[in-house]
């Protein structure tokens, strides 16, 4: 995913370069950086949501493992229709691994799966946070230089 924008080559914009740029170029750089910061924030939010859902799943799994077999329960058929049923085998769970594939796993494997996914998401989140804060710094610096230039150019009497 990191190759989609060649971020490395664009990143090397120093304060010196910012000073040399014209007003229009500065505005363009700032706008571009702002757009990128927003995109990264959106991605960060998405990761947070996904992590939350996985943690819910993990908690539900843990809860399920505590229930005895044969326990009476209500099974949702639609959002407003529940049907009474009994808990069959709480040791086997079906895990959605993506692209329409489901795998039968044991309870512990299922919990392990959730843990793994949560860790993967957390490391992605940390990486993104780094990139996002660098972009934000760039956007802020550009904004500062832009303001300074505008003040310079406007008559100061």
């Amino acid at each position: 995913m990191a190759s989609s924008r060649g971020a490395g080559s664009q990143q090397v914009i120093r304060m010196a370069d910012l000073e040399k740029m014209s007003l229009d170029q500065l505005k363009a750089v700032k706008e571009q950086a702002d757009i990128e910061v927003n995109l990264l924030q959106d991605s960060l939010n998405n990761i947070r949501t996904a992590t939350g859902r996985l943690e819910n799943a993990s908690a539900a799994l843990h809860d399920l493992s505590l229930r005895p077999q044969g326990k009476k329960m209500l099974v949702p058929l639609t959002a407003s229709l529940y049907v009474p049923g009994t808990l069959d085998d709480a040791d086997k769970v079906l895990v959605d691994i993506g692209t329409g594939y489901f795998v039968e796993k044991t309870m512990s494997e299922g919990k392990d799966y959730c843990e793994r996914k949560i860790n993967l998401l957390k490391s992605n989140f940390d990486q993104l946070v780094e990139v996002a804060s660098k972009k934000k710094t760039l956007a802020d610096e550009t904004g500062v230089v832009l303001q300074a230039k505008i003040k310079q150019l406007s008559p100061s009497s």
Partner: protein
Amino acid sequence: MSSSSTALRELQRDLENKANDLSKLQKDIAKNHQVRKKYTIQLGENELVLKELDLLNEDANVYKLIGPVLVKQDLAEANANVRKRIEYISAELKRLDGSLQDLEEKQHSKREAILKVQQRIQSHQAGKAKA
């Protein structure tokens, strides 16, 4: 004088055509980016699935969701399917890369051609003003 103004009009029409071509090229490039984004996401998802399948025991049960039906699948078959899908998506991405490069080159040369026409229009108008 009339001949030079028809020439001017022709130049302007040429400019318009080239500008339309350029905007079509830019739309194509944007679409290319969109499709490539979609494929990249699918590729990532399929690679995750492959990793999960690799972790399984030989006798683990794999099911595929086909419409509203969960169908039991053979682990080997599921592996083969996902691998084939990954190959297909990678090939598509490469093809998109090629056409993106092509489009960007065309866009670049279109921009240069537009610049040239604009310069000729300017020199034409300057010539008319002098005379």
